[in-house]
């Protein structure tokens, strides 16, 4: 049973068909990267999977259960963690309050103890009482991931976690995401940055203009320089 199975997903915003018939799957404990230039539909696909955006057609199954059409908060409670592109943190909450808020909502699911989150991201422990809105970009990203982990997810969806981050921070980011995967959480990563994608993903799906342009193992993607073809046309 796949952790996540998406079949023939179509997402439109009014006139715009942002995603046209996307199918992909993520196995338990696996890390898959969804790559593609901007406007390819990656964010739309991921937001539809998480229930923030309605889908026009297609099916989404999480751990064997059909979650198409459920509300975002219901899907989150089932164990699908989401770290959106601009993090959507509670800017007036402190780090600790953020994690506590997530824990309170997840009480029924046996949430991850907050101590474990601090063990994964020691810098958050240092900044426990600081307001989320005043953290640096990298720290905010860690808090967003930590918040998603509190609900003890089986699959973590990250949308361009490196966006807006200085290149030095990305190493720490990659390490933490890999550590999360090692603890048994499947990862679906949306990225534009090939470097990060390569460091995290085992498999790769390339999206261009809403269509799945290519998919295969990460090794193959690098060897065949697929990204260049998808991004730049025939080159």
């Amino acid at each position: 049973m796949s952790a996540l199975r998406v079949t023939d997903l179509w997402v439109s915003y009014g006139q715009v068909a942002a995603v046209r018939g996307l199918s992909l799957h993520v196995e338990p404990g696996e890390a898959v990267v969804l790559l593609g230039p901007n406007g390819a539909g990656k964010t739309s696909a991921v937001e539809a999977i998480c229930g923030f955006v309605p889908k026009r057609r297609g099916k989404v199954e999480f751990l064997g259960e059909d979650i198409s059409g459920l509300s975002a908060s219901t899907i989150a409670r089932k164990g699908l963690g989401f770290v959106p592109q601009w993090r959507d943190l509670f800017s007036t909450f402190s780090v600790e309050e953020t994690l506590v808020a997530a824990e309170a909502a997840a009480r029924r699911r046996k949430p991850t103890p907050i101590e474990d989150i601090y063990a994964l991201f020691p810098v958050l422990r240092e900044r426990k009482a600081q307001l989320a809105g005043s953290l640096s970009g990298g720290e905010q990203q860690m808090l967003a991931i930590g918040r998603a982990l509190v609900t003890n997810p089986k699959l973590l969806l990250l949308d361009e976690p490196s966006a807006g981050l200085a290149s030095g921070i990305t190493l720490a980011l990659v390490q933490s995401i890999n550590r999360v995967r090692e603890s048994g959480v499947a990862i679906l990563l949306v990225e534009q940055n090939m470097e990060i994608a390569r460091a995290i993903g085992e498999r790769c799906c390339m999206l261009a203009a809403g269509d799945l342009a290519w998919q295969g193992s990460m090794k193959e993607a690098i060897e065949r320089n697929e990204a260049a073809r998808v991004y730049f046309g025939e080159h």
Partner: protein
Amino acid sequence: MLVELGLVLIAGLKFGAIYALAALGLVVVHKATKTVNFAHGAFAMLGAFASFLIVVQWEWPYWTAYLLIPITIGAVAALLEFVILRPLRRADMFTVVIATVFLGIALGEAFRLTYNTELLAVPGMFAGSPFVYWGVIITQETLWVIAGALVTAVGCVIVFRYGKLGRGMRAMAASVRGAQICGYSVDQVYMVAWCLGGALAGLAGVFVAPIAGVSVELSIAVITAGFVAGVLGGFDSLKGAILGGLLLGVIESLAAAYISSAMKNCVSFFLLFFVLMWRPEGLFPEKVARRV
């Protein structure tokens, strides 16, 4: 002279405490749902009317009014949120304002139909001999209103800030998507917010019934006062709502005493105008962290 000022201030605090309650309810709903409920005043009027029923009509003990009415009005508010506001969740602000404005009218009319008099009188809870401090006469009722309303308001802020009930609303106020990611249900949080807002309005109605009587005008007066007090406090700040309410009450009382009684209402207009134009974030805004 000083005694007169003292009396004016006490009167101001009395109304101010009620405005604080009214503003609090309005701001709670706005914080959680980003909409202003223009029927909020009507909820207060219904609370006052229910107080009339309980105290005058059915002659139950007064304290039951203070207990039962917030619960009932809160439930009514939650029901109305479900029936009218939830279908309009995706509509724009314009539509929601229109809907709540006319909802308030409908509720007012429904009241007017049941009791065809213009004004219903309700006695106060305490009728004993007043206290006198330094020549200033304070009735027991006044003391009760000031203390009771303020204690409730502060208690509400504490619950909101630290209690589980408040956490979902605060999270949703800070980021709707972030809250959903944690698993907070928008439907649930919005309904709870309306319930709390309605309960606070109903309670304000019970406090104000002996002072102003029950009438349709009460509904307009409460929404106006609550809104202006909220704006004074910085519309998304709970403690600001309380402070704004007290400030509004005192300023109005001073204006009524030293300028003229009619000027009392003009005070609202000028305060609203000036704050919106020159300090739209309010006089007591909550700390705002840098944009995430």
